[in-house]
């Protein structure tokens, strides 16, 4: 980002739509699951048939409150619903039921760790709303599937506290892991159960005033979020720095050209004619209801990280990173059960294995069984193997699903400390490298390194380097 315009910084806020995984829809009792034969999971309410009325699914309200509690929000004792009026073929009633004036949750935050530093991103609100249907374009025709119409969503709106693509990505990753912890959504970006809109403007770092912002709609991967922000930031900076005024636009991100394209400009700016939804009375939540949700919360990443530091004694950075990914933390905790070298274990996860815990799910094929990783950590901790071997073992054990101890034995991967073998290795190296030997004897002490290096090579990288050094010095001293 810095490259694109050193004087400018991005001001980014996110709107995240998250489909709730309640069994039934938000306002009727139709099945809410993804997919299904088109228009098979629909009733008069889903189709918006004249006369049908919404009946709020309290499970959806409960899930929204869970999200609010997990994201450190204030829970509204009274919230209410509004109609957002607009025309689109996938919108059966011609309006969407949402919460515009009184959202169910307000004023939360998430702490992220971006480029090593901790940062707090504030959450303005979380509101409950219904999803629309889906258009299917086929053979020049457009068909409509209303199975998704009425599926409950929460929209999480952040304050414009994010200042780079990297931070936005870290925020979404962290948010995702928190939401997954609360089990209210499967957060599958590729299936659209987690969708992100980005609001972005640029300003000179020295300015306090915000620039004109644009909105990039419907980003469906963490990668796309980063790319879209980077590209839109450069576009805005290049215009603003030339003094060309920006217009308030809605854009979409084209993954092929990796650039943002205008969807609609300010002229067609929608007036949604919001008004109080007369079919749904205000939602009043009792103290019991809220405390019941609070008490049923699982351990969230923050708390988990604290526990990892205090109970397992691993570093804060590792704890934060691991706890921020639910698969990684489950994996770590399983491995920790039988491991004596927890710091080593956590480092192995964060430095070597972390790429397996990707944004689109965990690649199990790249991971050893947790008990096997714990063995590797112990082998490494006791010095039985060196760090290179540890890495190799992770790969081998992931592939072969065999005990690392057995592999070490079978492939003779233990560190070589046997005096005789060390002696022989140095002897062989010296006889192969008469020049280095004579260089050393003539006072070129650096030549020792290449002799030890050669011996290490001859050992297949397994010899104890300190013992090799010692032995080489000894043997050369004898020669003097």
């Amino acid at each position: 980002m810095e490259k694109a315009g050193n004087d400018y910084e991005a001001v980014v806020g996110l709107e995240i739509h998250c489909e709730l995984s309640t069994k039934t829809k938000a306002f009727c009792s139709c099945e809410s699951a993804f997919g299904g034969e088109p228009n098979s999971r629909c009733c008069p309410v889903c189709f918006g048939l004249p006369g049908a009325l919404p009946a709020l699914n309290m499970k959806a309200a409960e899930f929204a409150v869970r999200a609010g509690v997990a994201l450190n929000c204030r829970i509204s004792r009274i919230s209410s619903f509004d109609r957002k009026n607009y025309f689109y073929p996938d919108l059966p009633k011609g309006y969407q039921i949402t919460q515009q004036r009184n959202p169910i949750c307000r004023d939360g935050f998430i702490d992220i760790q971006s480029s090593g530093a901790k940062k707090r991103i504030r959450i303005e609100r979380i509101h409950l709303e219904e999803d629309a249907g889906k258009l299917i374009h086929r053979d020049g025709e457009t068909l409509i599937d209303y199975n998704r119409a009425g599926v409950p969503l929460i929209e999480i709106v952040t304050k414009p506290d994010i200042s780079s693509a990297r931070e936005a990505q870290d925020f979404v990753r962290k948010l995702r892991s928190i939401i997954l912890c609360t089990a209210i959504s499967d957060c599958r970006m590729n299936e659209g159960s987690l969708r992100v809109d980005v609001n972005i403007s640029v300003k000179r770092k020295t300015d306090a005033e915000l620039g004109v912002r644009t909105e990039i709609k419907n980003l469906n991967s963490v990668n796309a979020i980063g790319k879209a922000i980077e590209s839109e930031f450069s576009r805005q900076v290049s215009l603003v720095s030339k003094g060309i005024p920006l217009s308030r636009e809605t854009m979409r991100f084209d993954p092929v050209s990796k650039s943002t394209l205008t969807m609609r400009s300010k002229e067609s700016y929608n007036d949604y004619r919001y008004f109080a939804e007369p079919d749904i009375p205000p939602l009043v939540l009792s103290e019991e209801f809220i405390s019941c949700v609070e008490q049923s919360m699982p351990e969230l990443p923050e708390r988990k990280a604290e526990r990892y530091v205090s109970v397992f004694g691993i570093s804060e950075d590792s704890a934060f990173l691991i706890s921020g990914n639910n698969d990684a933390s489950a994996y770590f905790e399983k491995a920790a059960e039988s491991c004596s070298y927890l710091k080593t274990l956590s480092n192995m996860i964060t430095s070597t294995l972390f790429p397996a815990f990707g944004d689109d799910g965990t690649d199990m094929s790249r991971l050893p069984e947790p008990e096997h990783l714990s063995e590797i950590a112990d082998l490494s901790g006791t010095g039985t193997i060196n760090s290179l071997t540890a890495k190799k073992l992770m790969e081998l054990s992931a592939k072969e699903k065999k005990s690392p101890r057995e592999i070490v034995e079978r492939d003779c991967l233990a560190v070589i400390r046997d005096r005789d073998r060390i002696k022989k290795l140095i002897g062989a190296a010296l006889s192969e490298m008469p020049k280095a030997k004579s260089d050393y004897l003539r006072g070129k002490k650096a030549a020792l390194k290449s002799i030890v290096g050669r011996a290490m090579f001859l050992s297949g990288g397994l010899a104890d380097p300190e013992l090799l050094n010692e032995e080489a010095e000894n043997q050369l001293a004898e020669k003097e």
Partner: protein
Amino acid sequence: MRPNDLPLYELSAMLSSGELSSEHLTMCCLETADRTDDSVGAFLTLCRDDALRSAREADRLISSGKGMALTGIPFAIKDNICTEGIRTTCASKLLSGYIPPYSATAVRSLENVCAVMLGKTNMDEFGMGSSCENSAFRPVQNPIAPGRVPGGSSGGSAAAVASGMACFALGSDTGGSVRQPAAFCSVVGLKPTYGRVSRYGLVPFASSMDTIGPITRDVRSNAIVFEAISGHDPMDMTSSSEAAETVSGSLDNSDIRGLRIAIPDMGATGTGLSECVEKAVLDAASVFESLGAKCVETVLPFDIRTLAAYYAISAAEASSNLARFDGIRYGSDAPQNGELDVRQFRSLGFGTEVQRRIILGTYVLSSGYGRDLYSKSLSRREYVRSAFRAAFSEYDLILSPVTPDPPPPLGRFKASPSEMYYQDVFTVPANLAGLPAISVPAGRDSSSGLPVGIQLTAPHFAESLLYRAAYLFEKEISDGKSRK
């Protein structure tokens, strides 16, 4: 006398004693319809075979001793209340081919007791109008005042009951649509407390004010139908679980001695007032006083500002409720070439009055000037609510006209929409405040011979009080008539 002219509680007794069969009664209604509906135009859909089938079923039920008060009684339903498998058009071209896959909760309540559904009645398109002249199919004639409008928007239901084509009917009331046609056709119409009768399956006009209400020839019958259709419905979140008092069986014990009745200053509405209407209310006041009640004139929010607020709010909600008719899912004029022109579709599909309200409603919800009107209207609504709250801390009931004028000749409202809107000045306050109100016939104007009604309004959920007072009034009026 034709059996279909008798009050339904008498019919009910005759059915259970075996003196009358539902099949015969249903036949009588259908014959009356055959004979008169060509000129009246009360029905949009008549379900002859279905009706006779369910009448025979009702007869079986009654003979096995399982009949209820409404079992076997033929009735009609306003065409904006959904009936499974039966065309429900809202008197709109847009829905001329629409067959709902489900029935409204109120309809199901009547089906459950095996009442006999005769068909669907004509109305002003989507409930918008006060004369039934805004039906996309045909206007309705007033069966008891030739050449006059039957009122609206539930004019078809009122006309069907008034002419003996149905023993009772369901209407809907958003701003007076049950009470006003009841007054024009000299029948009894109740607008229940908002939330008392489920709205599930009622095609919405203004959701925060829509109610389903019964239209009958007499007060007791009205109470019987009301008791059958009211109650909490999980499908309608705005429906109330407040317990309802059953009064239909004990109306003869009614006593309104000591009741305090408020009367608004009828000259202060800003809409004008016919002398015969004012006289009917004052006469009614004397009747209530003779029954031991005390009538006092007081300031109440029956005026043109309340009327304006009603029109802004109802149009706003209507503009949103009617947005779904975009040409994609409804209407037979779906484009064949794949080009969807929403504007053209809606311009051709909706009638003039509906378009007028959609435009008004869209305007008042739009940011800027119009939005201010909407906010002011919401404040006015709050004021109306609190004014009624205050009034009901001093008074038990409010007595008022139903409309400022008796039924006008056909064509008058068409020519002047604002004159039509003025007719709602006494009915819309109950809708804005969610109060129950009943329209009861008060005889005919001695000079013009036109029917005139009076309206009683009660606090929330006090339908039983409305029925008691209306019942006594009705009795006095008919006793007075029989004395003459």
